[in-house]
């Protein structure tokens, strides 16, 4: 255990060394400060952004968009995925279409969204929800289709109703797949939120960093990128924690 903490500290120290190297490169002006501000100026921009409230407002907008879009996508993905996964004919007829759509870049629906909704908040949300739908949907279909057949036989022997079968057997059994899909969906949501904000010029970190780049405010730009990295990290860790909690029963075998 002690060795683990020691290694952890050492790896944080290595990360610190990288930041020091970044500072040295920036201070020595090896790369023009127009492109690469040092960690000091980036940190100042972060502090200033939060002090004036602009960065916090942008962050909250992006978080809200990402989470609402993700929840919509997850809900729709699980419901639709359950319907398709439970029925063999639905899988036979819809499966190939889903397989065709799976590798389609989610951002390719953005022009379609703009055509329908214009450059609005609704467009950004719709694109996030639609793009983030697929990983959860496909994972749910797979999870429901891969339920141990013995469990269905047991449920029949117990005379369980169809709803009880879904709730007590199929859903818990496919939960690992669903959560894996939702994790991917969350990443897609953040990406689409940022791109959507850039295109629709809605308040948020995406449009914030784009404006910072266009006006050559490199420290603000890097501050936004750091914040987006932090956002990605925290949401992913949060979902991992949730997953560990929900899947506790799996570890005890």
């Amino acid at each position, binding site marked *: 255990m002690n060795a683990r903490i020691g*290694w952890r500290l050492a*790896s944080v120290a290595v990360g610190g060394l990288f930041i020091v190297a970044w500072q040295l490169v920036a201070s020595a002006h090896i790369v023009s400060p127009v492109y690469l501000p040092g960690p000091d100026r980036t940190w100042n921009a972060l502090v200033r952004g939060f002090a004036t409230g602009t960065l916090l407002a942008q962050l909250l907008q992006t978080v809200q968009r990402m989470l609402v879009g993700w929840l919509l996508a997850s809900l729709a993905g699980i419901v639709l995925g359950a319907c398709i996964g439970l029925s063999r004919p639905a899988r036979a*007829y819809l499966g190939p279409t889903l397989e065709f759509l799976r590798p389609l870049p989610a951002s390719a629906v953005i022009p379609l969204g703009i055509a329908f909704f214009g450059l609005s908040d609704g467009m950004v949300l719709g694109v996030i929800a639609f793009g983030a739908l697929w990983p959860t949907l496909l994972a749910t279909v797979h999870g429901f289709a891969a339920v141990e057949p013995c469990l269905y036989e047991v449920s029949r022997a117990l005379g369980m109703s169809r709803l009880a079968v879904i709730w007590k057997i199929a859903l818990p059994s496919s939960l690992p797949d669903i959560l894996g899909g939702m994790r991917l969906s969350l990443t897609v949501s953040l990406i689409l939120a940022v791109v959507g904000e*850039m295109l629709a010029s809605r308040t948020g970190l*995406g449009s914030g960093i784009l404006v910072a780049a266009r006006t050559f405010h490199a420290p603000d730009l890097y501050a*936004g990128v750091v914040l987006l*990295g932090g956002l*990605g990290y925290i949401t992913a860790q949060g979902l991992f924690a949730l997953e560990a909690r929900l899947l506790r029963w799996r570890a005890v075998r």
Partner: protein
Amino acid sequence: MKRALAIGRGLAFPAAAIVLCQIAAMVSHLQSDTLASPAAALVAGAHAFADGSILLATVQTLANAFGGLALGGCIGLILGILLGSSTTADRLMEFSVEALRPIPSVALIPVAMLIYGFGYRMEIAIVAFASFWPVLILSRNAVAGVDAALFDVARVLRLPPLARTIKIVLPAALPRIFVAFRLAAGIALTVAVTVEVSTNPLGLGYGMMLAEQSLHPELMLAYLLWIGIIGWGLNFAIVNAQRRLFGRSANVRTAT
């Protein structure tokens, strides 16, 4: 026969949907700046093929995707082999990898724009960043998972580290490294299209945005369909190559 039946079933739903859309468009005498009938989209697509514009855009997008994949994938592979074969290096880099990996690739669009302006270099840099991570993580796991007995063989043969890596570790980890590149290829295409849709005036993504902005929904839909076919075709080709090259040994779990 069974296979033909399965394909027929799979095609039934999209075919029915397209026919229904066509009928709806014809019955309602569709005149719209946002929607177009499937037939109009097909005609627009055929025109775009005839004048070469969609082919040029495809070449641009694929050049960016594969350029970025080659760059990011090679750096990722080298670092992955390093981290996979040295536990010390792996533990020391743990924090840095954890801190940098969650940065969404699209957040680098403005950074690359600031440094390179628009064009191939900017897009390739972003695609390289995006495809770097899956290759790094998966090739690290692949190398770390190589049978320890093989390392004993290398020791008995007194192979120097470089020869050991090239002659023993790489061949043993190759199937899983191929899977890493398969995943990264899909990501590379997605990111390339995303960069083109959002900022970079090149390729399929930009062609689609241009069609939308110039109120040519039929051309936009043709592009969308073509991007879908490219994505599916790329995936199909790589999965087939994987089966042919590695057979069953490539059936590994890709979860990281």
